[in-house]
């Protein structure tokens, strides 16, 4: 049996399984609470798995292990920021958001502020963050499928992007939050089992001695000791170092502002379950990143250098699947073919689960915030009508993502993900934290921080070497890069906080300050919080 045949079969199995789950979930999706938050009836453990499924993207699974395989230690730096970030969510955001909101990120702002303005701002930022993240995943899917099927053709990549886009629309439109959650749970389980299997096989090659694995990786990399030390990927110029610091800030502060993560806290019955879900998620995600460390160094030690090093024409993002083939018995062996196909299918499931979460977050926000909260603010909107609009929005957002993803194939995936984190940290996190901790915070502060963080993060990237002025730029021919860093976070995050502060102190809004009393009691005690629906 050829690997292509096995891979294709397993891909189709993943699709069949997730479509089946979605159809089953659709029968239990009746009310708006079902569609947006799965009836708030998931347990902390289930939601923890789903958060893991939502968060551990292809950028983590393929990207980080690939970066470690090529650049050694520097690849590992990413995963640390991605993990530590969960403490922000655990300590400062998850429980209070669960108690104060209903369906979207905007809810907890609209709780005490002027609906129209804060819902519009939060919705714009939700859609922008989600679209950047979606593009990264869809472009990744296109590359991955083309490479795994062994066909280097633009047409296959485009077909994959369209296919992934249609699937994610299907999951969200038909299954809502319930379907999406189960798809994410299945993916998380597959990803953990698949990774653990390869990790054990890799470690067995080195008699479970981490030090010999690292030694072999350093030797095979041709870079020696420096492969195990920071500095290979990011370089040692001051600009590169500040750029890395900027990235580190965005990673650690961005997670708790990602809309598709935030809405997961609404899927459990109480704030205590939201806390439990984050605890499970931290355990799972931490274990997963420890495994990517072994996968990455394992690939560096066991794979032919040229196969993964982009400088030698290799495929960095294929380090994990190729490693699976090697530990399974090598190219041409049945074991190798089976493991390669298995890991490829896991990667595919990973992408599907993440894009579904992103589409759900943005369509919920369009329907609940923009349609119900802004456009139809003065008219009653039935639940049925709201859910219908959310489904239409999922269609539209999915279609937009497909159309944008095809030209976006020229962009760097890691950069798109980093940009989504930077916008989330600059635009969303300041507003969320101020709202929960500062009575004086008001509508003007919220809109200034959201729009200010959003515009500065995206604007700085447009003026950076990512867009122009370097060989790797989007427009290598022109040069308007007046901002030297690729990562805007070091400027845009403090700016988001500063604008939130200035906007607040330049206006008084007694109604918002007054409503803070209820917000605070609700957030800390759960008194009056949304209940789980009875089924």
């Amino acid at each position, binding site marked *: 049996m050829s690997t292509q045949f096995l891979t294709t079969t397993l891909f189709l199995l993943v699709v069949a399984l997730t479509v089946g789950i979605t159809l089953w979930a659709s029968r239990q999706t009746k009310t708006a609470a079902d569609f947006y938050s799965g009836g708030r009836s998931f347990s902390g453990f289930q939601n923890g798995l789903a958060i893991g499924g939502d968060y551990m993207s292809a950028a983590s699974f393929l990207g980080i292990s690939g970066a470690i395989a090529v650049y050694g*230690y520097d690849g*590992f*730096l990413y995963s*640390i*920021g991605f*993990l*530590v970030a*969960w*403490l*922000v969510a*655990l*300590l*400062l955001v998850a429980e209070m958001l669960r108690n104060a909101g209903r369906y979207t990120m905007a809810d907890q702002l*609209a*709780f*005490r502020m*002027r*609906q129209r303005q804060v819902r519009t701002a939060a919705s714009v930022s939700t859609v922008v963050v989600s679209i950047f993240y979606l593009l990264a995943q869809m472009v990744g899917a296109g590359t991955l499928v083309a490479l795994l099927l062994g066909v280097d053709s633009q047409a296959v990549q485009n077909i994959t992007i369209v296919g992934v886009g249609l699937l994610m629309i299907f999951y969200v439109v038909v299954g809502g939050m319930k379907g999406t959650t189960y798809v994410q749970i299945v993916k998380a389980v597959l990803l953990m089992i698949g990774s653990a299997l390869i990790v054990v096989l890799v470690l067995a090659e080195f008699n479970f001695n*981490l*030090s*010999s694995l*690292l*030694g072999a990786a350093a030797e095979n990399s041709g870079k020696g*000791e420096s492969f*195990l*030390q*920071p*500095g290979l990927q*990011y370089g*040692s110029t001051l600009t590169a*170092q500040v750029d*890395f*610091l900027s990235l*580190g800030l965005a990673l*650690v502060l961005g997670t708790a502002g990602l809309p598709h993560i935030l809405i997961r806290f609404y899927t459990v019955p109480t704030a*205590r379950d939201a*806390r439990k879900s*984050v*605890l499970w998620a*931290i*355990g799972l995600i*931490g274990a997963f*990143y420890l495994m990517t460390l072994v996968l990455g160094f394992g690939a560096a030690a066991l794979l032919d250098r040229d196969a993964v090093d982009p400088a030698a024409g290799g495929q960095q993002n294929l380090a994990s699947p190729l490693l699976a083939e090697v530990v399974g018995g090598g190219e041409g062996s049945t074991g190798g073919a089976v493991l390669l196909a298995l890991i490829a299918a896991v990667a595919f499931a990973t992408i599907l689960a993440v894009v579904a979460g992103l589409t759900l977050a943005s369509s919920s926000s369009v329907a609940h915030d923009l349609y119900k909260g802004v456009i139809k603010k003065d008219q009653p909107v039935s639940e049925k009508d709201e859910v219908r609009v959310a489904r239409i929005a999922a269609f539209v957002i999915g279609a937009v993502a497909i159309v944008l993803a095809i030209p976006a194939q020229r962009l760097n995936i890691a950069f798109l993900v980093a940009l989504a984190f930077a916008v989330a940290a600059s635009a969303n996190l300041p507003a969320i934290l101020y709202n929960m901790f500062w009575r004086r915070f008001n509508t003007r502060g919220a809109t200034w921080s959201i729009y200010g963080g959003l515009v500065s993060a995206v604007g700085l990237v447009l003026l950076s070497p990512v867009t122009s002025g370097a060989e790797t730029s989007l427009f290598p021919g022109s040069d308007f890069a007046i901002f030297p860093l690729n990562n805007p976070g070091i400027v845009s995050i403090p700016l988001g906080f500063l604008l939130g502060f200035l906007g607040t102190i330049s*206006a*008084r*809004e*007694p*109604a918002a300050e*007054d*409503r803070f*009393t*209820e917000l*605070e*009691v*609700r957030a*800390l*005690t*759960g*008194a*009056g919080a949304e209940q789980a629906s009875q089924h």
Partner: protein
Amino acid sequence: MTEAQPDQAARHDPVYDTLHATPEFTELRRRYRSFVLPASLAFLAWYLLYVVLSNWAGGFMATTVVGNINVALVFGLLQFVTTFGLAFVYARYSGSKLDPLATQLEKDYEKGRARG
């Protein structure tokens, strides 16, 4: 600018003012903030220290600890340990110090609403 805007939510149930003024609520808020604010500053500082050392203390990070394992790897793995550790400590703390007060206040809220 000063009066409530029409699209703002209505004035809340007065039971929230009563609860907000109770010593139990003040204590709950004090316990919550006195844990999460210092803890957040601490883990952010600890993480930034790691990023800064990775950037500007290459020599120190390259120091061998044992075999092929160097300070950089140990430091990175310690970030995992502290993240798991702080999550565990917060779970214990919130379970014993925050949840009982929160549950009590929520019950008072239900009673307050029933009366009102």
